């Protein structure tokens, strides 16, 4: 160890990390602004997907099924919006590597003196802010289109559950974010597979009780199970924070495990990429 060349460059501090975190959020905001028309196109795609799902309730009624239409529509709407939200969180986190590689900036970003945890948390933070705004918009537009009323809704509980669930979603997103580092060609698609698997076992459009036993067992470790059940209770049954505690505490436990596990997984993937020369633009 020799003397340092200059005090300014060697100053590592919390301020430095927070500025870096701001940089990650800021960059994503710049990109949203620059791709504004594409954002509109993707919103229309999410809207079309969600409408398809919510129309299922009307279809069941039209073919003679006995259902509480508004309740069924609300339940499906929550499923569709959470699916869309999870998709946004996973996609943005997966872009930590995928987009940087596509632009060719990956080497500059990964050689910068910023803790990888701060880098990933910055991506997660932006994903949550952006995801909440887009999902709220999606929820509102569909609710207006179907004239769904929320007389019994406790939106505070619902948002609190979403916020707590987001911690787990970010942790799992970090694990999928590493995939494009290991497989530049197919890694991003593997992220979509993880999202699909997570939601099929979590009761996105149906109660978990309809799943086979082994799937129900897997659903217990999926944060989306508790998020969907808790948010449905809050919006459909006016369940308070205390009433949905049984869904909140598993989310807290999964979150505490998922984030460190996500960071560890990403770090392990980064070490692998550095050993095998995959941390570069062309893969």
């Amino acid at each position, binding site marked *: 160890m020799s003397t340092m060349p200059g005090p300014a460059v060697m100053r590592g501090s919390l301020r430095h990390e927070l*500025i870096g975190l701001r940089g990650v959020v800021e960059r994503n905001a710049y990109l949203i602004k620059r791709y504004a028309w594409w954002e509109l196109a993707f919103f229309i795609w999410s809207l079309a997907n969600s409408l398809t799902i919510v129309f299922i309730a009307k279809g069941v009624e039209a073919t003679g099924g006995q259902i509480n239409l508004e309740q069924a529509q609300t339940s499906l709407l929550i499923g569709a919006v959470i699916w869309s939200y999870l998709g946004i969180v996973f996609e943005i986190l997966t872009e930590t590597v995928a987009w940087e590689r596509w632009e060719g900036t990956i080497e500059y970003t990964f*050689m910068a003196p*910023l803790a990888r945890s701060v880098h990933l948390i910055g991506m997660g933070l932006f994903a949550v802010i952006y995801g909440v705004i887009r999902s709220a918009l999606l929820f509102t537009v569909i609710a207006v289109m179907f004239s769904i009323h929320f007389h019994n809704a406790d939106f505070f509980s619902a948002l609190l559950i979403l916020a707590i669930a987001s911690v787990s979603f970010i942790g799992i997103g970090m694990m999928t974010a590493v995939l494009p580092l290991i497989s530049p060609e197919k890694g991003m698609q593997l992220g979509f597979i993880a999202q699909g698997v997570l939601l099929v076992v979590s009761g996105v459009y149906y109660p978990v009780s309809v799943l086979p036993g082994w799937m129900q067992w897997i659903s217990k470790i999926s944060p989306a199970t508790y998020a969907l059940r808790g948010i449905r209770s809050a919006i459909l049954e006016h369940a308070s924070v205390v009433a949905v505690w049984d869904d909140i505490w598993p989310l807290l436990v999964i979150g505490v495990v998922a984030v460190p596990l996500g960071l560890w997984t990403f770090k392990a993937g980064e070490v692998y990429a550095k050993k095998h020369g995959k941390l570069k633009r062309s893969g």
Partner: protein
Amino acid sequence: MVAVEVHNLRKDFLRRDATRTGLWRKRRRVPALEGVSFTVERGECVAILGQNGSGKSTLVRLLSTLLLNDGGTAEVFGYDVFKEPRAVQRLVNRVSVEASFFKKMSSEENLAYAARFYGMGPSETKTKIPEILGRVGFPSDRKHEGMEHLSRGMQQKVALARALLTSPVLLLLDEPTTGLDPRSKLEVQNFIREIRAAHDATILLCTHDLDEAELLSDRVGILDRGKLIALAPSDELKEMYDAETLEEAFFAATGRAFEEEDHDLERGVFA
């Protein structure tokens, strides 16, 4: 003071056996760098010459903390590149052959993004980015334009500005003028000279360009098939190999003309 100290550095890559087909092709280790040792003094500019696949980019990527070594050591101002990467990252920046930016974002936005990672807040970048863009000769009225609308030469100027913005004490230049038109090339070379004079920066320049190496560097190294076979001031190199020009010295040292492609295809991937 020693800025860079590399000792017996080795990096291998795993390659599939090209002679076999099928799912379970064997992999074997192919050395990209073998036993490379050298030092660079603070404030010195060292050029590394080599053909495609000689290991120049692998060397730059190792010193940039983007690769892990398979043997040997590398230190930057006394910090172990592989054990203390964060300390090294604060001291190093680089300019590569590809300018590499978020193409839709403007030069100002790209520079702000890069600067944040080095702890520079908005109040600092607000004054420093226009100042540094001005110094590299970037027209201020184009700072809000997307990078995709800028010429290659202009993009490379922004790449130099990005590297300089973080005040690196070690600048790694990996073919920074390859593909530029003669005027842009000259501008970039002049700016590299200015950086060195004004910032007391240490420069490791990997290049294809023999004239550039001779013009900008204090010493020239010849990297051939992963081995550093010579490192000396260009005049000494010529004397050493009884050559009139650096190109002749390169030929005498490697047994191949500089422009001749290395036919070892397996090595091509390291470029």
